[in-house]
């Protein structure tokens, strides 16, 4: 017999519904600016920042760089430090968007990330819908949670690839006095662990569903 879901499940379901709406809106805006941007001129100075990339007449991309310690001396005389170093420095570089593959690749990355996020949120929304109905132990939920875990891990890899691509682009094309652009492919360890935790929860759901069926078919 179904047990009614908790208020928390209802609240999370609402939040996920809003997230779905926002992601859909972001995709629509991305499609709009992708179509309109090539025709942009000075009067139409668009800039859409979605996470860390912009599609428009200007772009903002993530960069990684080293600071030349000879050109930019870092000192703290009050505590007796004569030379400090900035390490693992990250920032955002804004510049007029170039035409060609750079814009196309970023648009493709961003579209893929948004679609992946929307798909993952849809799966989670469906899981919470079953929680609200008080029947979470269904085969579909185990499959949905496996897909969410895949989306989390895949999204992290895709996001890292996007950042690396932009950092590499900046390293290859930009120069700055006293700065040395660099790139790296960094995957967030915690995002991968989160994906694995969701995968473990999916397996718990699969086992729970089998037990629930056994219980229902024990006469």
């Amino acid at each position, binding site marked *: 017999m179904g047990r009614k879901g908790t208020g928390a499940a209802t609240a999370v379901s609402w939040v996920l519904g809003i997230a779905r709406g926002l992601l859909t809106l972001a995709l629509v805006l991305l499609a709009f600016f992708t179509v309109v941007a090539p025709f942009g001129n000075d009067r139409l100075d668009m800039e859409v920042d979605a996470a860390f990339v912009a599609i428009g007449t200007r772009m903002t991309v993530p960069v990684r760089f080293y600071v030349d310690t000879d050109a930019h001396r870092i000192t703290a005389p009050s505590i007796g430090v004569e030379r400090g170093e900035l390490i693992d420095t990250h920032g955002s570089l804004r510049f007029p968007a170039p035409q060609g593959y750079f814009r196309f690749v970023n648009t493709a990355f961003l579209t893929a990330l948004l679609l992946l996020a929307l798909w993952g949120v849809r799966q989670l929304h469906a899981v919470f819908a079953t929680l609200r109905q008080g029947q979470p132990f269904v085969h579909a939920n185990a499959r949905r949670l496996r897909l969410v875990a895949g989306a989390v891990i895949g999204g992290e890899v895709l996001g890292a690839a996007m950042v690396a691509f932009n950092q590499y682009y900046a390293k290859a094309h930009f120069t700055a006095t006293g700065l040395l652009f660099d790139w790296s492919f960094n995957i967030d360890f915690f995002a991968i662990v989160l994906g694995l935790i969701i995968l473990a929860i999916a397996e718990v759901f699969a086992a729970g569903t089998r037990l629930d069926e*056994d219980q229902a*078919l024990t*006469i």
Partner: protein
Amino acid sequence: MAIRVKLDYLLLDRQMTLTELAEKVGMTLANLSILKTNKARAIRFSTLDALCRELKCQPGELLEWTKEV
């Protein structure tokens, strides 16, 4: 399922309907139907006890092992 419940044979032999048996053992018709159609995964001793009592049979008469098809 390798274990088959011979409820249909016993009901026929005792000239009893599934509804009558359900009322006597205090089970739902749906649950008895699951047993009769061999869709059950397990059977409780209490259920077996009630069925044997009402059908006046031994558990061995109610259950049968068959090769899985």
